[in-house]
């Protein structure tokens, strides 16, 4: 039996919009084990992105409990939380969100800088990653010089460089054509097989099917699994 990676216990997220409190996530209960590949599905506004952001600790639940690797995230201080996600979580974005002023190499290197990894070690790690993704030849290019698929590849490489236990991907193929899409999803499958836990949000049934588990959201609630 694989270890539990995270668990949500009646986790809720509300925001105040004017005088009304709007509930974005409503009493979510969810257990994720290491090695799972989960696809979150649901229409726009159903809370997929919010859930990913909250799990990724960029955002936080306003109610309920959130345990990550046995640690109670909901009662943690910002600093510790940041330490936790820096260590264990990688993000992949729909719009890639590479830093335009940095080369491919430097983009991939960035998370290591924030983890204070030594220079020589960084070099080795980034070189490995470039090698693995077959983008060594592009290491000195800037994001603007790459195609969308290539950019997303760099995005994933950047997410993986810190050896995270969990990858959160918000519509990772939303800006890509179907061929590029397939390549990226194949890559996710491969990574998952190598033991990385993945949670992706997607609109596409086809992409969702790469996952080992599909969760449907509607109006901030889990409606089916």
């Amino acid at each position, binding site marked *: 039996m694989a270890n539990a990676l995270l668990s949500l216990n009646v986790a809720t997220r509300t925001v105040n919009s004017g005088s009304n409190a709007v509930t974005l996530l409503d009493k979510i209960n969810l257990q994720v084990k290491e090695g799972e590949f989960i696809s979150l599905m649901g229409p726009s506004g159903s809370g997929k*992105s919010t859930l990913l952001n909250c799990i990724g600790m960029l955002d936080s639940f306003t109610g309920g409990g959130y345990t990550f690797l046995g640690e109670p995230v909901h009662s943690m201080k910002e600093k510790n939380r940041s330490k936790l996600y820096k260590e264990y979580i990688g993000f992949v974005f729909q*719009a890639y969100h590479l*830093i335009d002023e940095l080369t491919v190499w430097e983009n991939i290197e*960035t998370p290591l800088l*924030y983890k204070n990894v030594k220079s020589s070690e960084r070099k080795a790690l980034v070189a490995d990653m470039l090698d693995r993704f077959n983008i060594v030849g592009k290491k000195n290019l800037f994001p603007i010089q790459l195609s969308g698929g290539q950019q997303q590849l760099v995005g994933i490489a950047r997410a993986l460089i810190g050896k995270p236990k969990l990858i959160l991907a918000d519509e990772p193929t939303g800006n890509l054509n179907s061929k590029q899409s397939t390549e990226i999803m194949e890559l996710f499958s491969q990574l998952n097989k190598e033991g990385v836990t993945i949670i992706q949000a997607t609109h596409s049934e086809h992409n969702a099917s790469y996952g080992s588990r599909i969760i449907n959201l509607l109006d901030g609630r889990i409606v089916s699994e």
Partner: protein
Amino acid sequence: MIFNYIKIAFRSLLKNKGYSFLNIFGLAIGITCASLIFLWVEDELSFNESFAKQDEVYYVPTNQNYEGEWRTFYSTPGPLAQDMLDEIPGIVKATRSSSEERLFAVGDNSITRRGRYADADFLDIFSLKFIEGNREDAFVNPEAIVLTQEIAEQLFGKDEKALGKVVRVSNKDNYLVTGVIENLPKNVSFPFSWVAPFERYSEGAQWMTEYGSNFSDTFVELSPEANFETVDAQVRALIGKKADFTDDYAFLHSIKDWHLRSKFEGGEIVGGRISYVRLFMIIAFIILLIACINFMNLSTARSEKRANEVGVRKAMGSSRSRLITQFISEALILAFIAAVFSVLLLALLLPQFNLIIEKDLSLGLTNPIHIVVLLGIAIICGVFAGLYPAFYLSSFKPVEVLKGLKVTHGSASFIRKGLVVGQFTISIVFIIFTILVYQQIQFAKNRELGYDKDQLLSMRIDRDFIPKFDLIQQELIRTGSVHNATLCNSKILSSGNNGSGFRWKGGTDTEDVLLSFRNVTQSFFETTGMEIIEGRGFSNNVEADSAYVLVSESLAKMMGDENPIGNIISRGEDNMEIIGVVKDYVYGDMFDSSDPVLFLHYPNYARFMFIKTKDGVPVDQALSDIEAVLKKHNPAYPFEYTFVDEAFNAKFKNEQLVGELSQIFAMLAILISCLGLFGLAAYTAEQRSKEIGVRKVLGASVSGIVKLLSKDFLKLVGISILISIPIAWYAAYNWLQDYAYRIEINWWIFVVAGVLAIVIALATVSFQAVKAAIANPVDSLKTE
């Protein structure tokens, strides 16, 4: 990590060339400006520092009471120096001294130089450095003279030794060179080219050895152990002890204050040039502030472009403090680039600046202090300008910015507007001040002087010239180029040569009045164009006129007599009958009313000749005619002259300096502010491009859109005008209080400054506004 910041900063600079240019250029101008001021201040603060004894040397001015008011003079009674040395234990050296201009000749070589007659202690007090001869026995010979290297080389040539040689002074006396000293640097309060024993000047005159008349400077040196307060108290009591008939008293004025704190009012130091030093320091910081504001504004205005990066970096695990460090490092890098640029600008501008301030400042990049200050300015600017954008940008929440939500601008745009208002307020204050300073100078220049300063030459003469004057005058007039000539004991624009102790019928015996003496020839009023408003002028007989005087209008008024003609003015045993009243004329302080004047027909004391050239005669011709006459009758003297109107203009040097600098700084402040405004307008236009597109599609005209975009900025300039008016008025009012003769502050100045600011701002903004307005809406609507 820092390497990463530097890399990204440079790439970001290169990517946004226009933005980088605005930022770096603005900051570079600011740093250049501040550096120029700091160089000037450094020079001002370094005055007299070349003299080794900074803590022990003092000038001894006297306070004298006239018409109930204490006035301060550098002239002291002759015996004061010796008495201070004898009776005040803390004083170890003292000298009398008098600054004089003399003609020096060796063979055919002749030059005029200002120097000092003084006692031997003078050489010690000022620690003069001897190149030839030595300090101890330089003044043993009563006919000695010590020359600076410069004048020695002029007279004897570069390679010749001057020591032991004879130099002829004023075409009558021989002096023996007993020493050559190093040249004095430019930044001394009282420059001199030679020093000679005081006895040679006083020639044993009785009145120079008594209390009662003040004529020589006194310098003293205190022992290092002496307590200033104790010694100063004794100095203050000394004259009263020695001469019970006067309430004059002397006091100590430190060498460190000679240059910057030498303005006296009511017998106390009230400041001096130090107020200009402070004013310009404040201006330097204000200009830097304006430049920093630009940086802040441009950085926060383009925050949207950076927001995404902030989001990504935070998601990658960056803490806020790391982002703050990153943004401040970027600002620092920019500031350093600006500093490098400003060094180039400084090298380019310094010669011009030197011309304006009449100094010889150098960049001094080998001076570690200069480098440290420059780096300091860059660091302070970088950190200060980077701080707010850093905190603002790093506060973005990754969830929001990564989703592409618009960054809310509430506080940032309010602060940005505030900063623009701040910049323009400062600029407008500068404009107003510039106009006012200009007006005040013109006002004083155009005031009724009481004489005609045009076509009037002033020449220094020596005593041997005086007997020849009548002949020279006739020959000058005969050339046809000269209207008339006269002799006088004082330059026409200068104060000095004054005295007190006068009594007249109907005057009080308690209040003393300080009168200036002008010992003149008969032709004085005719030559200078001064007007005799009552009575008559002098006759052509000096002896017959010996008991007659003319007085200035203000003196006549002071005497209160309805008909001053025939009234007797007496001083001691001398009685003088008033035969005429001369219209008041302005001398000394051009911004104040001048002391009353007593004119005596006594050319023997003359030290200057004035020559009025004829109307319509070209200056060159008049000068060559005059030179021919003087060469004939006075061949030993070089033909040296000044034009009184030029000397008059030179009297406004300080005000002119303030005026010109405030003009330059006003222009730079506006330039920097406009760079910022230009950038802001560009970003606003960019931000609102979609709105503009929609409006155009809906039928808005180009002019309507230009108006729409310019309106907001003009509102800010309007607010700036409102804020700046009271500030400028207050500053100008205070500045004008220094001048007795001053302008009223006119309301139209504020209007002019306001309109100017609006026009400049409009020109800056409308370029961007027009560009945005004529853009094809299809392009802007297609995006997103």
